[in-house]
């Protein structure tokens, strides 16, 4: 211990004597380690971003929509994409006749081959909020076929990862009364942008002392009645405030709401809306969280489906609107390779549950197309367009292959980055060796003195190793600091994603220690094995 301490003191003293040399060597080490850390962070970040994009682009996403209003078309040549089963309708189907009677004969040609229950009008005719009608009265009738128990059954299919059932509609959301929320800076364009609404003269009441409005800021947006699994499916979501609603709230159909970041901005400006109360259909909802985009390539904009939107437990929507059916069920598979098989299983399951005989068409639509997902599922439009435009037979490429290809590309990049970093570490290490060799020669006499007063060869070895390690560790620590700063600056400036794991920091630190030992060992050994008398005789 005392020898260690003395060695340290000596080591520091020796390093301080050759300040410039030490500084230059440590700079080499610092740059090496910083490069390693930054490269690992960038490489892993790129890998993570790519797989996140594949997932958020919906490569493993399947959407089951109620109703089947696809026009009959030729079966696509490739089996990877499962077309919804289509069967010619039975002649003399009474609903069909009724429908054609209502719509007129000229529609007959088009309707002729569509199942009566697939009427697109029926599917999308959701009850108006104020009407509070039940399914049948709202015209959903037998066409809205998906139920929560369908979703529960789908959840049991082996390769399925998450299932979320949804009801979607447009709704007006009303912020808290301005008088109640005087602390919240009202966004000036929050009212002006709500172009669908007559701008209320009382709409804006701010600190200037205008009379309090009976209404809060209103916004017309997309309402999603969703399942708790939704954030797991939409992996690119982050929560700047609060959280998503939880299972208990969904089970008890509580009136809780999660705001998209655009809605939150319109209603509350930059303030934290969590805990505030908003109104939909004149019903109070408690805000529990705000959703924003966690991906730099997907920026929230007014009018988009994810962030200019509000999320309420599907059970709450069903209770308030007296609904029992769903618009759609969203499913993710555990791996992109399972999509085709899971689509098949879902189709079979639902046909069986809905008691659809072999000759009848599906009363639902299962979609999982890569093209559709790429075009709408989270990639920037120009990126999606480029991919779709350049890959002519996109449908022929299995999702599995696409994912693997992208993954391999990013692995290659990581390997490249790490080899660059390794070279810079090697250079840093040789620098340390050089300084240590010089130091050993310069201090031969000192080594002789230490040996004369009783230092063993091991003592000398450990002191010089300690010096080399000290240099590389200090250099390494500075490198870690530099690497962290560089990585953060890089993300800030060019918006590359990084992944700064503690593991990467630890690895960089371990590498710098290892370089110190590896390149310090030879000079230290030279110092230790010299005969004491030769060291003492040495004239510098």
């Amino acid at each position: 211990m005392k020898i260690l301490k003395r060695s340290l003191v000596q080591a520091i003293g020796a390093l301080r004597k050759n300040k410039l040399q030490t500084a230059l060597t440590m700079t080499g080490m610092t740059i090496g380690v910083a490069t390693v850390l930054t490269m690992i962070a960038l490489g892993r970040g790129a890998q993570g971003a790519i797989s996140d994009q594949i997932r958020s682009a919906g490569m493993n996403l399947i959407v089951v929509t109620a109703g089947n209003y696809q026009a009959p078309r030729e079966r696509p040549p490739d089996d990877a994409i499962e077309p919804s089963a289509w069967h010619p309708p039975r002649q003399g189907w009474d609903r069909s006749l009724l429908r054609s009677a209502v719509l007129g004969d000229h529609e007959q040609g088009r309707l002729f081959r569509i199942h009566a229950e697939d009427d697109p009008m029926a599917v999308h005719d959701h009850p108006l909020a104020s009407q509070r009608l039940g399914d049948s009265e709202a015209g959903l009738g037998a066409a809205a076929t998906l139920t929560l128990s369908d979703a529960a059954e789908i959840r049991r299919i082996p390769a399925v990862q998450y299932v979320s059932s949804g009801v979607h509609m447009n709704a007006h959301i009303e912020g808290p009364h301005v008088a109640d929320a005087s602390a919240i800076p009202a966004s000036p364009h929050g009212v002006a942008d709500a172009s669908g609404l007559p701008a209320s003269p009382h709409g804006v009441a701010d600190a200037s002392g205008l009379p309090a409005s009976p209404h809060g800021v209103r916004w017309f947006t997309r309402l999603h009645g969703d399942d708790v699994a939704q954030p797991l499916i939409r992996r690119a979501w982050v929560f700047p405030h609060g959280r998503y609603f939880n299972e208990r709230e969904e089970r008890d159909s509580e009136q809780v709401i999660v705001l998209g970041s655009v809605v939150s901005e319109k209603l509350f400006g930059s303030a934290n809306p969590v805990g505030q109360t908003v109104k939909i259909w004149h019903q109070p909802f408690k805000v529990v969280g705000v959703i924003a985009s966690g991906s730099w390539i997907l920026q929230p904009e007014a009018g988009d489906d994810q962030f200019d939107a509000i999320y309420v437990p599907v059970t709450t929507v069903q209770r308030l609107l007296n609904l029992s059916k769903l618009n759609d069920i969203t499913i993710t598979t555990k791996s992109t390779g399972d999509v085709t098989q899971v689509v098949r299983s879902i189709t079979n399951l639902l046909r069986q549950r809905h008691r659809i005989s072999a000759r009848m068409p599906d009363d639902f639509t299962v979609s999982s197309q890569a093209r559709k997902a790429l075009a709408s599922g989270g990639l920037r439009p120009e990126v999606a367009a480029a991919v779709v435009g350049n890959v002519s037979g996109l449908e022929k490429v299995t999702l599995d292959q696409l994912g693997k290809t992208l993954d391999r590309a990013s692995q290659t990049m990581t390997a490249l980055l790490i080899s660059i970093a390794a070279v810079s570490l090697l250079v840093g290490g040789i620098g340390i060796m050089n300084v240590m060799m010089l130091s050993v020669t310069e201090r031969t006499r000192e080594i002789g003195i230490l040996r004369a007063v009783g230092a063993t060869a091991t003592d000398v070895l450990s002191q010089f190793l300690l010096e080399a390690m000290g240099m590389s560790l200090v250099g390494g620590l500075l490198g870690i600091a530099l690497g962290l700063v560089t990585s953060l600056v890089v993300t800030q400036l060019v918006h590359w994603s990084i992944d700064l794991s503690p593991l990467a920091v630890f690895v960089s630190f371990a590498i710098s220690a290892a370089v110190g030992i590896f390149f310090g060992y030879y000079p230290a050994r030279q110092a230790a094995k010299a005969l004491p008398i030769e060291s003492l005789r040495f004239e510098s």
Partner: protein
Amino acid sequence: MSVVISVRNVSKTYVMGEQSVHALQSVSLDIHRGEFVSVVGPSGSGKSTLMHILGCLDRPGSGTYLLEGQDVSRLSDDEISRVRNRKIGFVFQGFNLLSRTSALENVELPLLYDRETTLTAAERKRGAMEALHTVGLQGRERHHPNQLSGGQQQRVAIARALMTRPAILLADEPTGNLDSQTSIEVMELFQRLNRERNLTIVLITHEHDVAAYGSRIVVFKDGKITSDEVNAKRRVTVKGAV
């Protein structure tokens, strides 16, 4: 008087290129506790080689060397390091102090490598202070070698040599870098330590007037002892005589 050093038929040959230099040729020598032996001879006579072997800095080519009855020529490097640490104190011509290190820390140095006695930092410091006091350097503990005169540096080296209470003190041309007045002061110190502590001292020099401070003079020439006798005309310093 017990025998501290017993050298029997020790030879040492250095090979330099194609020439072999017989630095020591079958030298035998006994030194007893409390002796102050001066080894004199011209340069190249083998006296420095003898000192290196006595100080366990080098191994004899042949023959045996018993230090306090222990055959040190057969010890491992670690064991020899321990012997140097515990039993031998060195004083060199060039002082050989660690620069960038205070006088006090230089004196403490041997204790740091002493694996047998576990002293606390405070105890080590107290011991070093005492040693510096003995050599008359109280108040200079914090000075670095380059802030001390040659004589003072040599006293620091002597204090360091005393730290582990060695069996012998080996001084290799201790006055070689000092002026005559300072040389006298250093020799005074040696005589005092020899007398007061019964410290065995082996002094190596090529100056006969320095050798005259010893109680016994061994003369070397061409790797052999040519004369070994008690110093009848011993020089005694004023203080040393008291």
